[in-house]
């Protein structure tokens, strides 16, 4: 199987190279292009087969595979056997290749009828990167997923128990998928730049992938935070650790990109900016992968010395330098004479939001790489801690929330003061009321930053609520539908816009959770004996009794705490687990329980108001001492020193027999392990009886639940935006570039109509804008018709730019509407 795997991997590498070369060399040959696309599908199939082989070996406990031996064991639960692949470096690379193969195939499938000039270059870029990652596995030392061990050990080392947590198993592939999905917009952007087709067509074709990347990265970040909060006995969810930052930075840039591409789509502006952003996002994603593996920066996520770091750094260098050179050489095409009409317009707000997001990214990047920067200037590595990050990110995040609220209230192009005032009235009033109430009745008044965030978040949430209300009311007026149906109607017809609004609400809610839990948290370390009580933040906390249990490889020391909170009573049971290391030859001693890994199961009482979070840190000195004594007794027993019980003699007899007859060895080892477990159980029981004092970490975390809720709301919004529209689902096969252009223009007209109906555009503004848009549509259709008759290839670029064609008799807008409705 291993040699089959290696052959498949080598074939996959060849397929990636061939697909890229065929696409680039015969880029004008339609048939060759189809061929190259099919080779990409073949590449996907080959990589899938490689992954399947590895997974089968994991499930079959084939420890002759190095990857299986090092990351799984006989005791590893089946679920984690499946997921253990990506806890290895070579498995991660394989996963990277698989995700890239899937996304590339999907992207090429969806663009098979359009972007004719651009696709060969995009194929080249995607397959170049695919060849890089498959090539790493084939040629770089130490990362061959099909490496064998000879002779094969009888058991594996197993998966670290800390990582045996459902969210830890989904978290890495989520982040990976996010990183990898960014390849697609990047590849198409490069294609657009090379072929000088820098209109919004490549954006329309790939923005779904940017949105998918955003969603995956966001979900990955959220899962990581959740894991940290519930699984590590630390109680925090974010630490500004380099590896965390490495996932946050591409996500922030991707957020900026998703906003600024709308400006390019609608107004044909910000082309240089968008090209730069997509390159930066992708480079940041690569940098994240590099950071995770290089060990260049001190991080909690230390993944050991890696052999692939330098190669990835090389790839980043090529990507950054190559793309920069390309953008500079295309500056003339990218520049547009267009300007933003008004500072009170949606595009202006998008610009501000972009600056804030990029500013945030720059701050985080500076802080993350500061150890390297300071080493360069001062000769010693200095690092920046969380307070430094907080100082800069807090105000930026607060401003972002404000703009999260302002953006949706403004229409494209221009808004008159009177309309703006009307749109802002209710949200501003709500903001004022909430701010005053919070300042008067809570201690939020002492924390100006938190108060500002609550105020702006209220503004954003109420503003977006108003958007939904007005939109539905507008549609109700136009169609006569009841309110509920009208609401569903506006969301269904404009998933992208309303999905985006829902994301805004989610982010505002999430930031409320972060602000409240970080500013108003009570964090205490207490030492209690069983039966003792203490009062923490008005809650009476009693350490009722210790618990202890041994289950095979795990020794758990727990505590039962009773909490009385405002007349209500509940118990929490934090627990600390100690694991014996697996995968060693023979058996170790009882003390091994404290030599292996340990993890916490926190006691958590979550609520909408606040979480009661607790972790225990038992004093294990006594336990270790007892284990050592037991160990000595055990050894004596095995040596059958006079005076030991009879069972000792039996074990000894078995051991002597086993030494002579290897067939009995397993039996003897199992016997010893069972005896050790029994002894460990006695030790655990004596710990409970002894009633030693235990350290507890108690956190009372206000509103932290809203962080998770907000995150889920944002994800739901993103999914709504990703979901294909009805027209696409039905007629996806016949869509061409022309159709896409028509649809985009029509959507703009419809948006304006909706904005007007929702009261966001005054009658006067609307009349002006509508006339302008219709004129543009007429011009565009003329252009298209001429192109179809004349067979020109420059349709896209021209139709989106400025020109002076004049509309003629027929009503192309009605035509457009027909296209849209059919």
């Amino acid at each position: 199987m291993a040699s089959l795997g290696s052959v498949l991997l080598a074939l996959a590498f060849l397929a990636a190279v061939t697909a890229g070369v065929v696409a680039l060399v015969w880029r004008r040959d339609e048939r060759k292009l189809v061929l190259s696309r099919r080779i990409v599908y073949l590449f996907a199939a080959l990589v899938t087969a490689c992954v399947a082989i590895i997974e089968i070996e994991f499930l079959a406990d084939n420890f002759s595979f190095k990857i299986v031996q090092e990351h799984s064991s006989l005791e590893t639960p089946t679920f984690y056997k499946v997921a253990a692949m990506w806890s290895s470096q070579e498995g991660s690379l394989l996963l990277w290749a698989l995700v890239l193969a899937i996304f590339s195939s999907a992207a090429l499938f969806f663009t098979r009828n359009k972007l004719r000039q651009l696709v060969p270059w995009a194929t080249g870029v995607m397959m170049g990167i695919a060849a890089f990652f498959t090539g790493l596995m084939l040629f770089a030392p130490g990362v061959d997923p099909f490496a064998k061990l000879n002779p094969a050990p009888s058991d594996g080392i197993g998966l670290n128990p800390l990582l045996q947590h459902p969210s830890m198993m989904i978290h890495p592939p989520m982040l990976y998928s996010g990183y990898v999905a960014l390849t697609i917009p990047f590849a198409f952007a490069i294609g657009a730049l090379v072929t000088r087709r820098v209109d919004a067509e490549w954006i329309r074709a790939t923005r779904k992938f940017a949105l998918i990347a955003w969603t995956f990265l966001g979900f990955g970040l959220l899962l990581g935070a959740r894991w940290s909060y519930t699984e590590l006995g630390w109680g925090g969810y974010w630490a500004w650790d380099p590896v965390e930052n490495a996932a946050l930075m591409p996500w922030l840039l991707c957020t900026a990109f998703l906003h600024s591409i709308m400006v390019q789509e609608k107004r044909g502006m910000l082309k240089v900016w968008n090209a730069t952003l997509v390159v930066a996002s992708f480079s940041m994603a690569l940098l994240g992968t590099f950071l995770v593996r290089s060990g260049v920066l001190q991080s909690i996520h230390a993944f050991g010395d890696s052999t692939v770091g330098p190669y990835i750094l090389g790839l980043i260098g090529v990507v950054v330098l190559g793309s920069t050179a390309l953008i500079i050489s295309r500056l003339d095409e990218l520049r547009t004479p267009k300007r933003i009409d008004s500072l009170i317009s949606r595009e202006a707000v998008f610009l501000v939001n972009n600056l804030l997001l990029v500013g945030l990214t720059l701050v985080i990047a500076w802080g993350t790489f500061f150890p390297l920067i300071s080493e360069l200037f001062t000769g010693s590595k200095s690092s920046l801690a969380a307070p430094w990050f907080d100082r800069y990110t807090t105000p930026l995040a607060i401003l972002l929330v404000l703009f999260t609220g302002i953006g949706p209230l403004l229409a494209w192009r221009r808004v008159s003061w009177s309309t703006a005032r009307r749109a802002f009235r209710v949200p501003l009033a709500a903001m004022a009321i909430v701010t005053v109430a919070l300042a008067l009745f809570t201690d939020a008044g002492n924390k100006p930053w938190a108060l500002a965030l609550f105020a702006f978040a209220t503004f954003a949430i109420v503003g977006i609520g108003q958007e939904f209300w007005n939109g539905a009311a507008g549609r109700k007026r136009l169609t006569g539908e009841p309110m509920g149906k009208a609401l569903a109607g506006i969301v269904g017809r404009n998933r992208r816009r309303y999905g985006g609004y829902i994301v805004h609400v989610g982010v505002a809610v999430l930031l409320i959770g972060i602000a409240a839990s970080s500013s108003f948290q009570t964090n205490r370390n207490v030492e209690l004996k069983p039966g003792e009580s203490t009062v923490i933040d008005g809650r009476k906390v009693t350490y009722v009794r210790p618990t202890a249990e041994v289950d095979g490889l795990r020794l758990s020391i727990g505590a039962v705490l009773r909490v009385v909170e405002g007349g209500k009573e509940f118990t929490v049971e934090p627990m600390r687990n100690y694991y014996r290391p697996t995968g060693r030859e023979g058996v170790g001693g009882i003390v091994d329980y404290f030599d292996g890994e340990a993890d916490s199961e926190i006691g958590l009482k979550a609520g909408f108001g606040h979480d009661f979070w607790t972790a225990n840190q038992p004093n294990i000195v006594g336990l270790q001492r007892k284990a050592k004594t037991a160990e000595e007794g055990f050894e004596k027993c095995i040596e059958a020193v006079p005076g030991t019980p009879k069972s000792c003699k039996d074990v000894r007899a078995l051991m002597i027999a086993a030494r002579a007859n290897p067939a009995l060895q397993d039996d003897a080892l199992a016997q010893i392990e069972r005896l050790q477990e029994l002894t460990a159980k006695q030790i655990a029981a004596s710990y409970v009886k002894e009633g030693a004092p235990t350290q507890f970490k108690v956190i009372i975390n206000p509103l932290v639940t809203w962080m998770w809720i907000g995150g889920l709301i944002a994800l739901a919004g993103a999914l709504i935006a990703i979901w294909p529209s009805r027209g696409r689902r039905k007629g996806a096969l016949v869509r061409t570039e022309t159709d896409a252009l028509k649809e985009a223009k029509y959507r703009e007209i419809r948006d304006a109509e909706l904005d007007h109906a929702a009261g966001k555009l005054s009658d006067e503004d609307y009349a002006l804008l509508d006339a302008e848009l219709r004129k543009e549509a007429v011009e565009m259709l003329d252009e298209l018709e001429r192109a179809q008759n004349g067979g020109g290839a420059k349709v896209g670029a021209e139709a989106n730019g400025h020109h002076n064609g004049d509309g003629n008799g027929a009503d192309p807008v009605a035509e457009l509407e027909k296209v849209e409705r059919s």
Partner: protein
Amino acid sequence: MPLVDPSRKRKIRLVVALSTAVLLAVALIYTSFSASTEAKEPSQILTASPGTTYDMTGRVVKGSIVDNGKEGISFMVVDRTGGGEELPVSYSGTVPDPFRGGREIVLTGSLKGGTFVGEPETLITKCPSKFTTQSNG
């Protein structure tokens, strides 16, 4: 009619934006150098000036961890490569799950009377390497 012509207005706007950006960048750079703590390995800390705060990055010596109950824990560290003289460390506060002998840690603190005293809640233990090249048995 606008008082200033549009191109001039744009120029002013650009200048204002750029100078704000420059000011912010200067503040960022300045604070980062003053707020940062220098990272040192145990062998360097032994010869460093007492009282200065450092980020100590070292490896916990196996079997050196002593639990002092209320007073927290004490242990010895050596350089990450495993060499050099041992530095005694005392720390009270939350001990991360993966903390144990042989692991790499980062701890902020200062040297007091020959012992490196860690500040509470600053102990970071590196995750048991997911991507180690050798087994961690």
